[in-house]
Each structure stands twice: as C-alpha cells, then as structure tokens.
C-alpha cells in the first residue's frame, strides 16, 4: 500500500508548501496565545453584557467561553483562521498529489515503473494525511511552548506575585501560602505586600483575597461532596446541608463549621435578594461609568476595562457617583444634607469599583487556568476535520483527470462547508445551514465547555477513512490518459 521511494519523492517536491503553511499557522496560533489578556477580555465582555439589548442577541455561552484562553482560541484560531489556512493547504496539496500529475502527464513516469497503482496513490494519500498530522503537531508544540513561555500555564506551578511577596515576608514557602491564603488575610503587613505585588489598592486586594478564599472554600466543599464546583456555586445550600462540606469549606477560611454555616446562610439570603437588584444596579453603574468617562474624556468602553482610573480621579468619581445614584433617595432620612448623600453614593460606587477590580484579578488568575488535555483535544479535532476535508479533496483528485474539474469539486465543496458554517453562526435564522456543513462536527466550544464531541470526532474519522479508501479504489480502476 505504500512505497518509501515515492513518499520520499513526494515529500521532496511538496515540503515547501507544507513548511510555509505550517509556519504561518504556528505563528498565528502562538500570537493569539501570547497576546491573550484575560483582564482585557473580561472587561470587554462585561461591557457588552451591560449594554441593553446586546446581551439578548449574543449567545451567553459564547461570551463566557471567550474569557478563558482555550475558549478564546477555540473561537478565533480554531474557529476561523486555523481552519481556513488548513483548508487551503489541504485543497492545494490534494490536487497536486494526483489530479494535477495526471493532467500534466507526469503520472506516466510513476506508473511506468513496477509499482502498483494502489501503492502509488496510497502513498500519495499517506503523504496528505501525514502532512496534515505533522502540521497540527507543530502547531500544538509551538502552542504549548507559547502557553508556557507567555503564561507559565503548563508546569512549574506559577504562584501569583502576591503569594510570592507574602511568602517572602512571612518567611514560609510559596506553596504553604497558596494553600492557605488566610495567612495573608490575617496579617496586615502581608496584605500590604500582596497588594503592592499585584499592583492594586489594599481594599481591592482584601476583597480579592476574600473572594478567592470563598472560591477555594467552594472547591473544598465540592471535593468533599464529590461534585463539580459549578454545582456548588449555583446552589450553596448543598454545602449547608452537608456537615462534611461545611467543615471542609470552613477549614479553608479558618472558621469552624458553625461559624461558616452562619456566614453561608447570610450569603444565601443575600444572593436571593441581589438577583432582583442586579439588573437595576447594572444600569446604574453604566450610567456612572458614562459620566466618569465624560469627565476623563475617554471612551466608556475603555474605561470599563480599567475602572481604576475613576478611583484615581476624584472629579470622575464624584460625577460617576452622582450619575449612578446607587443608593435610592428614599433610603436617606428626611433632610439629609446633599453633601452626605453624595458622600454615601461615592462610597457605594467606590465599593462597586473595588469589587469589579477584585473580580478582574480573579479572572486574571482563572484565565491562565489552562487544560493541556482540552488543548490537545482542540488540535485533535482540527486535525480530524482537516483529515475528512482532505478526504473530499483527495477523492475528487483521484476521480478527475483534469485539475480544473478536480478543483471545482475538491475545493468547491470544502469552501462551501466553511461558508455554511460561518453563515450558521451569523444569526438564528441561518442556523440550519450548520446541517449542510461538515465543519459543524468540529465544535471547539463543545470541547472547551465539556460538551459532546466524541461522536462527532468518530464520524469525521470514519468519513475520512472512507473517502480516502474510495479515492484509492477509483484511481485503481479508472482509465488514465497518460
């Protein structure tokens, strides 16, 4: 089925095209990974979500997906550029390997040797498959290296700057601090050092620490309950009802079960309340942001990404506080002086900013939460898609004796698939186009958000194998004008 000599010759005349496309793809994916900044993207997402009307139009999962490195990669590189580049490479190579050689007549020289047709064309199929495979291997290796170099996302657990600073101050090792953040929380000096290391205010840092601790507590509780952390976050009563979970979570916070249970009760009551207020508050904050942006003379969008600017400018803060008027006027006692109202509003807005800034820090930490397994699956999926599409182009390359006919279908169909896929994402009215496209079977979002993807992968693999095998069989049996 395979001739080493032909493989070598095919490699010799085709490696340049492979090298060019592989280099471009690897560089693009590396760039996308390197410039990824979760803080910035989080800010953008918040901005989009807060715009009335916009949030309804966009798929919620799309927004949440993009805040992690993998989610963002899945939507950009593996949803668009990488697939398009791979497509072009596969189409060009598949045509060169068979149809173009028959069209030119140079195939006569391969077939006037004692090498069987099936071996000749089988070797060409093998070259196509292995060139796609090695292309994604290179992209994967370069991608992983970039993740490590730019984000320390792979190994040598990278402790955040504040943990390092606090550990140095407390004279314990970093791991101890990372595992027990109460060491920082309970030591004012450590808080100062940590805040400085992170480059945020102490009050922001304190909120950040508490939030982080709360998250860790949820994690511990989830572990104790043997469920996903998302389940616990969505429904904290799960913890409340389990003594083991309570004590595990409490331990993280340095509290006993009873104290933690009380805290949890408050939290549950609060969250029920705040759900109603969230919408209203959001609107007020946007109003405040817009006012502050006017004072600072920058775009509200830019300001949303960097709310620290408002804190640094008292005039902006004042304007924002007045515009937002977070505290309803009726909650003040009759005859409260306007200055006091203003002050209270300012304090409220400040706390919103602090919470937001702390939130940004959290997502900064989470953004680097990089799953090598998911990344490999993403690349495997992209490979399988290209493998199947390569099968289409290869089949037509085997069927037709003229390059132009081979390209008409061998390029036309994959390009149509790509366009249908894009169209299906544009709006819900065109969504049914996804059933017309093979590309739908590779859904990066399903991989990064742990949806179903294994059956799709299997279909791509089986389809690909069938297409290549059919191509070889057709070529073996057809008349060649050589």
């Amino acid at each position, binding site marked *: 089925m395979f001739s080493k000599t032909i493989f*070598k010759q095919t490699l010799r005349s085709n490696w340049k095209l492979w090298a060019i496309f592989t280099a471009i793809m690897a560089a693009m994916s590396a760039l996308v990974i390197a410039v990824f900044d979760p803080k910035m993207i989080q800010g953008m997402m918040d901005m989009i979500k807060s715009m009335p009307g916009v949030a309804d139009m966009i798929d919620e999962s799309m927004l949440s997906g993009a805040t992690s490195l993998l989610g963002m990669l899945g939507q950009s590189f593996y949803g668009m550029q990488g697939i398009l580049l791979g497509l072009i490479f596969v189409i060009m190579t598949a045509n060169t390997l068979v149809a173009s050689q028959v069209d030119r007549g*140079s195939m*006569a020289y391969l077939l006037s040797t*004692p*090498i069987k047709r099936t071996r000749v064309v089988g070797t060409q199929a093998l070259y196509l498959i292995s060139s796609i495979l090695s292309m994604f291997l290179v992209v994967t290796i370069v991608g992983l290296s970039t993740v490590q170099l730019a984000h320390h996302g792979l190994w040598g657990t990278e402790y955040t700057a504040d943990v390092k600073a606090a550990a140095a101050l407390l004279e314990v090792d970093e791991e101890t601090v990372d595992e027990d953040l109460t060491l920082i929380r309970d030591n004012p000096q450590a808080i100062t050092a940590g805040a400085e290391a992170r480059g945020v205010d102490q009050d922001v840092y304190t909120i950040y620490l508490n939030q982080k601790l709360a998250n860790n507590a949820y994690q511990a509780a989830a572990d104790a309950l043997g469920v996903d952390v998302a389940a616990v976050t969505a429904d904290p009563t799960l913890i409340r009802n389990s003594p083991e979970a309570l004590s595990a979570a409490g331990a993280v916070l340095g509290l006993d079960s009873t104290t933690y249970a009380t805290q949890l009760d408050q939290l549950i009551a609060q969250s029920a309340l705040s759900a109603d207020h969230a919408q209203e508050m959001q609107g007020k904050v946007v109003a405040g942001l817009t006012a502050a942006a006017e004072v600072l003379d920058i775009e509200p969008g830019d300001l949303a990404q960097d709310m620290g600017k408002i804190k640094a400018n008292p005039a902006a803060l004042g304007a924002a506080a007045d515009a937002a008027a977070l505290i309803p006027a009726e909650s003040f006692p009759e005859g409260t002086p306007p200055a006091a109202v203003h002050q209270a509003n300012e304090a409220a807005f400040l706390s919103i900013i602090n919470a937001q800034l702390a939130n940004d820090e959290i997502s900064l930490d989470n953004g680097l939460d990089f799953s090598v397994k998911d990344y490999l699956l993403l690349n495997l999926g992209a490979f399988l898609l290209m493998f199947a599409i390569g099968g289409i182009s290869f089949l037509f390359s085997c069927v037709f004796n003229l390059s132009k006919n081979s390209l008409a279908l061998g390029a036309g169909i994959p390009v149509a698939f790509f366009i249908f896929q894009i169209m299906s994402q544009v709006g819900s009215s065109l969504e049914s186009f996804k059933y017309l496209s093979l590309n739908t079977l590779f859904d990066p979002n399903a991989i990064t958000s742990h949806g179903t993807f294994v059956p799709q992968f299997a279909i791509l693999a089986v389809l690909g194998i069938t297409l290549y095998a059919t191509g070889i069989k057709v070529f073996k049996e057809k008349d*060649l*004008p*050589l």
Partner: protein
Amino acid sequence: MPLIEINSVTKDYGDGRGNFDVSLSIERGEVFGFVGTNGAGKTTLIRQLMGFLQPDSGTITVNGQDAWSDAAEIKKLVGYIPGEIAFPDAPTGTAFLRQQAELLGLRDMSYADYVTEKLQLDPTANLKRMSKGMKQKTAIVAAFMTDADILIMDEPTTGLDPLMRAEFVDILNDEKAKGKTIFMSSHMFEEVEDTCDHVALIKDGRIIAVKSTLEIKHNEDKVYKLEFRTHEDYRRFLAEDFEHSEQRDSQNQVLVNVHDTDIDRFMNVLTYYPINFITEIKYSLEKYFKTLY
C-alpha cells in the same frame, strides 16, 4: 507464442475515435512499427498496452500476462516513452533520471550514461527550461536506461533534428541486435521503414494492413519512368506489349510496370527507342499504404 499479443481489442470513445477490433502479434526480438495519421488511435492502443486504459473488449497480453490486471508486473520488462512528455518535479535532468532509477530499483547508471552520451544530451540542464528536443532525449534515456527487454515508444523521434534521428535509429539497431522487442508508433514512413521488421497501418482505429518491410525492399514489381525524345517515339512505344500505369502525352513520359522476370525483354525493346532518361521509381512503404487509403 508471441511476446505481445493484442486480441481483437476495442476501445470506443465515440465519433469513430478509439480502437476497433485491433489484433496484432509481435514476436520476441521483433521491431514493430505502428503508423497512422494523427487521431488514428495509435496512442490509445499504446496506453492499453501500458495498462493505463482498460479495453472495452478483447485482451492484450505481454509475456503471457494481462496488460491491464498485471500492469505493474509487466513494467519490470518494459521501457516506455510517452507520446506527450511531461516530467515530474525535479530540478535537473540528472535529478529526474536518478529519481526514475530509484523508482525502477535501478542502481547501475552506466547504460544511462552510454545513451546520454550517444544522444549528446547534457542532463545537468534545468528540466523545465529544456528544449523540446532535449526533453525528448531525456525521455529516451529514461526509457532505455534499465536495458529493458521490451521498449514501447509513442512517436519517440518527435522534436529530434535529422542528425539526432539518425543517432536514435543507430541506438535502435543496437537494441535490436541485442534481441530487444520494440513497439513504436510513428507518423513518418521512412523512419519505420528504416528500423522495423513489420509495420502496421492504422486508420480510424482499425488496422488496415500489416506489412513486412523486407517484402517492400525486395519487391519484384518495379516501376520505370521513361521520357522519349520525340512524340512519334512516345506513341510508337505505347503500342508495345507493356503495362502502363501512367501516360503523360505533353511530356512524352510514360510509367511502365515491369516484373523482374520481364526485364530482359524490356531492355531489348528499349534499344529501338531514343530516350532522354530512364529512372526507377522506388517502391516504398508509403506508396504501398497510399494505395490502401
């Protein structure tokens, strides 16, 4: 048993194109020419011989093996020059020949070097910038280098200048002397007449005739052209008992068919006539086939 046996092969492309009920047999050590106009179906037959096309009906065997189903096996015995030469991707002629040798499992390049030298080919030239003649020479080297027992060539001399054509005929005669079986197509009668033992004429996909070149060379029915000094002599000669294939009154010329057994009587009669000249009109393959067209 013939080395190459083509048995009522039909490959119908419609509109009278292709091959129709073609049967030929070529013995081992024979040089077989295959002549016909453009589009007569020469290349179609050669492609079937090479196993590139499958006959609609009929069989082709080479050395007892089927040309279609055992194509790869047969290639061990065959050197091939395609009708339209398109080389695979290779920077130079040398690189191409080495690449081809690799595929053929050939290690010894000495015969390739010999043919290269004989054709005065510089194989180090850039393959894509070669002239038509150089490409043809490179293709010839590629076909001959394995010293294969059977050579199948589709119009191998296209693009060669007359000197190189003579050189090529020389090489062919060497190969023939070594006992090679050669099957070549051509649209030039002289070429096949010089080299081939047998020549087949194909027209509209059908074999019209197969002729031995030896028979042509040793033809006993000769044609002489005579020109008489005066019109009276001319008229007088016409009354003699000879077969005239053509009479040209205005020029006092006549073409006379004379069998070799009758040559003495012819010469005797001529002594009584004053003539300007007498020439023999050579009988050729071309002439023979023209009569069949």
